[in-house]
């Protein structure tokens, strides 16, 4: 076992059914074993690449443009109340 599926699922906010755990554990472990071949690549002097465009300093001017209306903003939610999105109570922290 390479991966603690319940722990990762919790971190990923994914509700799993009990029967899914074993299946995912097997599949994910297989994939992880495969991708581990990267450890053989010599990357001693290699920089990391997280973007490929070479762009830098792309910003926008501090200008305001129209927002969505309240109705548009709330148009896809199933739970709303007085112009606000509604969720089950959560503890402040």
């Amino acid at each position, binding site marked *: 076992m390479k*991966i603690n*599926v319940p722990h*990762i*699922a919790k*971190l*990923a*906010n*994914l*509700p*799993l059914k009990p029967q*899914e755990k074993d299946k*995912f554990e097997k*599949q*994910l472990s*297989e*994939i*992880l074993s*495969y*991708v*581990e*071949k*990267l*450890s*053989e*690549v010599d*990357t001693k002097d*290699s*920089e*990391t*690449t*997280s*973007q*490929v*465009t070479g*762009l830098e300093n*792309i*910003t*926008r001017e501090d200008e305001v443009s129209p927002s*969505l209306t309240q109705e*548009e*903003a709330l*148009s*896809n*939610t*199933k*739970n709303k109340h007085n112009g606000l*999105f509604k*969720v089950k109570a959560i503890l402040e922290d």
Partner: protein
Amino acid sequence: MKLNELTIKRAREGLRNKNFSSVELTRACLEQIKKHNKNLNAFITVTEKKALEDAKNADQHINNLAIGQFNNYPLLGIPIAHKDLFSTKGIKTTAASKVLEDYIPAYDATVVKKLKDAGAVIVGKTNLDAWAHGSSGENSDFGPAKNPWNTEYVPGGSSSGSAVSVASDMCLAATGTDTGGSIRLPASFNNIVGLKPTYGRVSRYGIIAMASSLDSIGHFTKTVEDSALFFDITSGQDIFDATTLPNPTESFTKNLEKGIKGMRIGFPKILKENSQELEYLGYFEIAKRLIQKLGAELIPIDIKHEECAIACYYIIQPSEVSSNLARYDGIRFGNNRENFGDEAKRRIMLGTYTLSAGYYDAYYKKAMQVRTLIKKDFDEAFKNVDALISPVSPTPPWKLGEKISDPLKMYLSDVFTVTANLAGIPGLALPIGFTKNRLPVGMQILGPHFSEAKLFQIGHAYEQATEWYSQKPNL
């Protein structure tokens, strides 16, 4: 020839000369959809009413346009489709996932807007592997799209429905996204042309993100020339996407007729154990010989780190996926996270794991370093050649269900395509023939960053010599 079978170029000529109207053209596409979508499952949403309205407006527009103004609307009255990953204001956008089955965007993706402004008529939203996760099209929560050449086979994914819709003449062109091969693979499985542009050349704004540093926004057309025409519209800097780059001022069609005489074109020195099907690889050998015949010089090239590209890709991509799919919590839109399918769950967990404390360096950071090496390999290669050709897929289309229970096996079908995404370079997939079972085979032409015009040049020369596009599936 039926109207819906036309290329964009021919359809424009017809519209301009008033040989037929946009309404007639659009109706022909809608009828084709009506006739075959049940069987092929290319569309998730068909916007018939709106399409006909838009076509009517386009016809009026054509009638009112002064001479010379026609060119200002390069897609005026042309029916196209969008992968259901593109936000379309007022039109349901599902990503083929139950999570978004009712989601109606309040805004248009930049590309959708650009195409609208060019006059295009949208006939609908096409099927895909949910969230663009997949190589076969089978991961759709709304059932798989089928290969029009043989409906027992997969059409390739993830942009399955877009490829099928163009191949089966339900529209003249369709948009797609390519994060690891999702345009090139289905293009090659459907005997059509698919462009994966240079990363950053087409705005990603409004297109549901899969893996942000790899997502490339492209399209499917019947011919290379159509692909270049379409790219003239979609490409260019967007103030809403900080990773986009400015465009050249000239049209991408400018080099089409120049031929490839004297070009240096690389091919993979060894196709390694990446493909066991020798018969299939034979088609690529034939394509190589034709390239040579057309006057190019063939040069064997070794992309040293190609063999670890899949491993590299399947770390970076799920990591970004895990973060990009975090917004789907069912609060502001859509359904809650229980509704993710298995493949999305796998990628979310895989990515969460590779980014998590204690594993980041061994997985994500390592993969970003290997990515640098792969990019360098291509930089080196392109010092020596104008472009590279290679197969798109290690195998011809496979049967529905064949790989679905083995995720790793499915991932390995991306072996020839993911390198372009890791390096951010453009790739053009185009047909090179059929297997003896009459399933399409394609190849891809890869070039350095911003070399799309050259890819079109090579592709067009090849296409003119082969005319595979004239072959139509027997529906």
